[in-house]
C-alpha cells in the first residue's frame, strides 16, 4: 500500500523563466519540502523566490570526495523526508532523467520502499542543442557518451552519425572527486577520438543559455584544439559526421528478396 510520503523529481529546463512546465511548477509550489540542484546561481535564486524554504543540494558536493558519495547523500536526504511522510520535490536543471543519476536513484528508491514517485521531464541541454545548432538527430543518427565513460570502456563510434560528448570538462577523472581535469587528460581523449576523426575535424563546444539575457556558447574548434580549449563542466562537444552513411547492400538485397516473396504471394491469392 502506498504511504503518505511521495517524491516528484522535476526538470526546470535550462533557461530561467522559459522552460518550466505547468506540471513541474505545481509540484514545486505544492510540495512540503523542495530540494534543488541547478546549474546557474541566478536560477537557484529564482527557485528560492518560488520556494523560500528550498534546500540547495550544492553543499553535498565536496571536492576530494567521490561524487558517488555525494550523490548517495543527496538521494538519502530526499528519501528521509519522504519516509517522514512529506511530499518532496527534487528540482533539477534541464531534464531530471538525462545524464542525471540522482533523480533516477531517488525515484527508484522511493518506489522500492512503497512510496509514490514520479519524474516530470524538462527541456534538457540536449534539446537546446538541437534547436541552437540546427541539428536533427534523426538525419544521420546521433551517439551520446559521457566523456570519461567513453575513455574507460571499449565503445564503437560511428563517424557517419553525430557524436555528442558530455561532461568533457571532467574527462578522464577516475576518482570522481574532481570538478575538472586538464590538458593531459584531454590529450588522451583527443588521441582516442583521432582513431575515428581527422585532427582537423570540426567540433562545436556548446553551452546552453541559462538566462534570457545571454546567448548559448557555440564555438567551432578543431579536434586538435580540444587539448587547450576552455572546456567547462557545462560544455558539451558536438561532432558532425565525418563520412557519409554507407549503404548496407546485403541487407537491402535481403529486403528486396522479401518484397519479391510478398509480391509473389499476392499474385498467388
Amino acid at each position: 500500500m502506498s504511504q503518505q510520503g511521495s517524491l516528484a523529481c522535476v526538470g526546470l529546463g535550462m533557461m530561467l523563466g522559459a522552460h518550466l512546465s505547468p506540471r513541474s511548477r505545481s509540484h514545486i509550489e505544492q510540495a512540503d519540502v523542495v530540494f534543488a540542484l541547478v546549474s546557474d546561481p541566478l536560477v537557484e535564486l529564482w527557485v528560492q523566490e518560488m520556494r523560500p524554504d528550498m534546500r540547495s543540494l550544492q553543499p553535498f558536493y565536496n571536492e576530494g570526495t567521490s561524487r558517488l558519495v555525494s550523490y548517495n547523500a543527496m538521494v538519502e536526504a530526499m528519501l528521509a523526508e519522504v519516509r517522514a511522510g512529506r511530499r518532496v520535490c527534487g528540482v533539477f536543471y534541464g531534464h531530471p532523467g538525462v545524464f542525471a543519476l540522482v533523480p533516477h536513484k531517488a525515484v527508484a528508491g522511493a518506489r522500492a520502499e512503497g512510496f509514490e514517485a514520479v519524474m516530470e521531464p524538462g527541456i534538457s541541454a540536449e534539446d537546446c542543442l538541437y534547436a541552437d545548432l540546427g541539428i536533427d538527430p534523426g538525419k544521420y543518427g546521433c551517439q551520446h557518451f559521457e566523456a570519461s565513460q567513453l575513455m574507460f570502456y571499449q565503445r564503437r563510434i560511428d563517424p557517419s552519425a553525430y557524436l555528442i560528448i558530455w561532461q568533457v570538462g571532467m574527462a578522464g577523472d577516475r576518482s570522481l572527486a574532481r570538478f575538472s581535469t586538464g590538458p593531459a587528460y584531454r590529450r588522451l581523449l583527443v588521441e582516442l577520438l583521432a582513431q575515428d576523426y581527422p585532427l582537423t575535424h570540426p567540433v562545436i563546444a556548446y553551452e546552453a543559455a541559462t538566462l534570457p539575457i545571454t546567448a548559448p556558447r557555440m564555438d567551432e574548434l578543431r579536434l586538435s584544439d580540444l587539448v587547450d580549449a576552455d572546456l567547462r563542466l557545462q560544455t558539451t562537444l558536438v561532432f558532425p559526421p565525418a563520412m557519409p552513411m554507407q549503404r548496407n547492400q546485403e541487407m537491402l538485397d535481403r529486403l528486396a528478396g522479401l518484397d519479391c516473396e510478398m509480391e509473389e504471394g499476392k499474385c498467388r491469392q
Partner: protein
Amino acid sequence: MSNVIRALETLGRSPMQASHYVATIDSFVLDRAERKAMLDRDHATLNELMGGTKKMVFAIMAADEET
C-alpha cells in the same frame, strides 16, 4: 520576488525585440547597477549584485557507478 529575478522571469517567458527589451527592463524598479548589468547582459556582475553562489557544481552523472 526580487525585481531582478522577476525581470529575468518575464524576459524568459516572452522573447522580445531589442526595443522592447529596454522597455521591459525599465518597467521594473532596479537600482542603477542592476539596470546596467541587465542592459549589458552581464551575467557575472548580475550574479555578484544578487549575491548568488560563486561556484556551482552540478554534475549528477558518474561515468562509472562501480568506481
